């Protein structure tokens, strides 16, 4: 069993397969696990589609499975796995994060309060927001 951590989701992939640095998951689980969807034009998320070079198609898709670690590298995003290669964290792209910050548009996020109710930043449009971090440690 492979667990994929991405944004706030944790997806269990029973049929995933690890070969070296490659993490292959069922194409049907791709959207739940990563937020991206395989389409004829490439890998898509919202309005954005990233084509796969035809000559390298076999590196990314094979027999109903997608190579998520290869996809993540192709997207320029960070990835990390545990010692047993059974838990994989899919992270962000520094250049995408940097571009968002340089635009000075406050990136949205969704987080729970102690009761588990979800809050997002965009719901506070129309107000000045003092976004402040803290920790017990």
């Amino acid at each position: 069993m492979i667990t994929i951590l991405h944004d706030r989701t944790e997806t269990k992939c029973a049929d995933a397969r690890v070969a070296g640095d490659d993490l292959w998951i069922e194409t049907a689980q791709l959207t739940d696990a990563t937020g991206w969807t395989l389409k004829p034009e490439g890998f898509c998320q919202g309005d954005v589609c990233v084509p796969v070079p035809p000559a390298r198609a076999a590196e990314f898709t094979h027999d109903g499975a997608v190579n998520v670690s290869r996809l993540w590298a192709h997207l320029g995003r960070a990835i990390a796995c545990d010692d047993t290669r059974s838990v994989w964290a899919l992270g962000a792209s520094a250049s995408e994060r940097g571009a968002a910050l340089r635009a000075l548009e406050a990136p949205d996020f969704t987080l729970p309060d102690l009761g588990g109710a979800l809050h997002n930043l965009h719901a506070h449009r129309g107000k000045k927001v003092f976004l402040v971090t803290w920790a017990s440690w």
Partner: protein
Amino acid sequence: MWQSLYAANKSRDFVVIAVALDVPEAARPWIEAAKPGYPCLIDRDHAVADLYGITNVPQAVWIDEVGRIVRPPENAGSSDAFRNMDRVTKQMTAAQIEERQRVKSVYVAALQDWIDKGEASRFVYSASEARARLHLPNDDTARAHAHLRLAQYLLGCGRDEEAKRQFAEASRLHPESWNIWRQGADKDATGTATSPEFWARVDALGDRPYHRTIDIDGI
């Protein structure tokens, strides 16, 4: 901590959003004791730190009514006075406490000025000034946050030793993040990461600040 500021301004289209870069069980007693009226969110995986380039607490961002960042992440009024506290008793001298309160009050006054005057406040940065003060991520800091995410997950599964290695890797990739280092560090009986290793790391800063100096006159 920000209750009085919030209470005085909440009817004026102003909100505080407090984000605990912390696990819920550690944050809970603090939130329940303070009972603030504003949203107190739990960010176990430091997603907000990853999104905004936040490296220490308290760091804050000022966001205007249309969602524009008018002051990028900066130290929200803390001072480095704690570095000279008695490290056994954790007591500070009267002068150190006064200095800490002075810095905080200058910062809060600037925040109040923005609430009162909006974009006319002298504490609101122009776009170019704001951009110049961003701490942008690089590939290593992005990878550090993926390792932190993994570490927090492993900790939740009781895989403490593996989690420790992931925290260490995260901190190696993003050494300037005190958030990552302290989240992964051993905590004392009060739940704070103020071990001898913490003080050694603070002392290794030398003349560099622990809390970045706030770019506001009088601080």
